[in-house]
């Protein structure tokens, strides 16, 4: 029981400190609203149904982009990890693309995809692709060569070799990539949703930023934090399920 509470200790302490800080008037509440103000903003947005709508549409964009980008990143990582030729051909290009900021790309994205949903999903997919790629690639590269040899000796090749040996061996690293890309997913969305949006958490946050609705800004930050925790919990559940053979993950709570 107590173990379930401890991880929340620091967030809760911060919250209390913040409430005191603002209510004592150290900064103007116009600039940094108190948690209670944020709470009321949330209640208000919930009642009008706006919040649910924003979260919902963002979730849709996020998952579409995540699935596309994650799949491509995973496959690329796979091929480049498995085949030297493909690594030689593609790795340099991927590494070059990796560093291009989404924000700088927006003009080109508008050119290619217009200003509709495709553009947003493309950006999310692009953002998600690289962490998945990099960690898959690394995971596959570090699978014990001895085990692969063994599998080949026992008649595994192609897909069975991959399913039984390479994938499970790379899994813990792939999961790190997924975990990270779940974060990048939300971060990208805020950029994607600045392209001509009227909905989504990113829109909500950026709009609030333009019009300095500090309570909404803080609300959206908290929302991101919660979503972060949520995707982390999911990733951990997967880890617990898939890595139960691994002594280090055995007792992860």
């Amino acid at each position, binding site marked *: 029981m107590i173990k379930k509470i401890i991880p929340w200790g620091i967030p809760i302490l911060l919250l209390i400190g913040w409430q005191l800080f603002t209510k004592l008037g150290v900064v103007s509440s116009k600039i940094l609203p108190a948690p209670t103000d944020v709470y009321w903003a949330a209640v208000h947005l919930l009642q009008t149904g706006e919040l649910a709508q924003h979260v919902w549409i963002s979730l849709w964009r996020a998952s579409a982009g995540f699935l596309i980008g994650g799949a491509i990143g995973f496959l690329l990582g796979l091929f480049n990890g498995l085949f030297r030729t493909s690594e030689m051909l593609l790795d340099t290009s991927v590494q070059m693309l990796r560093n291009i900021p989404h924000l700088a790309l927006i003009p080109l994205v508008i050119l290619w995809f217009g200003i509709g949903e495709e553009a947003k999903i493309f950006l999310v997919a692009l953002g998600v692709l690289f962490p998945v790629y990099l960690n898959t690639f690394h995971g596959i590269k570090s699978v014990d060569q001895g085990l692969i040899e*063994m*599998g080949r*000796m026992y*008649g*595994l090749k192609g897909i069975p070799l991959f399913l039984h*040996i390479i994938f499970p061996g790379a*899994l813990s690293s792939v999961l790190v990539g997924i975990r990270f890309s779940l974060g990048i997913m939300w971060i990208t969305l805020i950029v994607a949703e600045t392209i001509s949006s009227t909905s989504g958490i990113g829109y909500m946050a950026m709009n609030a930023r333009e019009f300095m609705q500090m309570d909404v800004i803080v609300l959206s930050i908290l929302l991101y934090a919660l979503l972060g925790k949520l995707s982390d919990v999911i990733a951990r559940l997967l880890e617990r399920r898939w890595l139960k*053979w*691994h002594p280090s993950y055995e007792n992860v709570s």
Partner: protein
Amino acid sequence: MKVVKTSHLELVNLQKSYHPTAVLDRLNLQIHKGEFIAIVGKSGCGKSTLLRLLAGLEQPSGGEIRLEGKPLTGLNREACMMFQDGRLLPWKRVLDNVSLGLKGDHREEAEAVLRQVGLDHKKDEWPAKLSGGQKQRVALARALIHKPSLLLLDEPLGALDALTRIEMQSLIEEIWSFQRFTSLLVTHDVEEAVSLADRVVLLHEGKITQNIPIPLKRPRKRDQSTFASIVNFILEQILELPRAAQGRGLEEETGRPFHAVPSVRVSNVD
């Protein structure tokens, strides 16, 4: 007077070197179909390397391996190897490790072979929870269930106590005599070599220095006197080598008479 048998495997001037040092130096050996060969030799003399070459996991630096007359390139699909270090998949339970690579449902078969190596009660454990010898027996079970036409065993019983060891030896012999695959067994236990093999090959400094047929009938009994004298003869060879072979070529070895066990014919490197 040699019986003409089909030659399953042939090593022709086989060489392997890891950059500066030569590990195997122009080996020549013929192995017949269904023959059981034991390979003995000092630690680091290249036994595992030889098996890896036969499995096609390494490419020779010179010479070649002929598999039924054809030179071996790439992985040897007929072979099955039990590695010196076990190599169980940590993410598969014992039973799944054993049935790895089998097509179709082989659950019962896998359970049966696990029972034979005495580990049916561990079938749902993770490998990380097994003892050293248990891991080795799982690896052995996995090699035995695969029914290859060439079985390569790299010190399969190194971590086992005397009793379990003898049980496993009879298991290997039983399965071998039933299926008649060609077998190569690397071992550091000369008794084991003599009790299982048709021929014992002694590897020293990258060369085959002895190639001793074991003419004993099966099942072999360790308390037979011939058994003991062959074991002693081979041990002597091994113990002598460091002094004997230094500076001396293989040619000089060739004519050496077999004093200790006169009833046993010795064919040297063929």
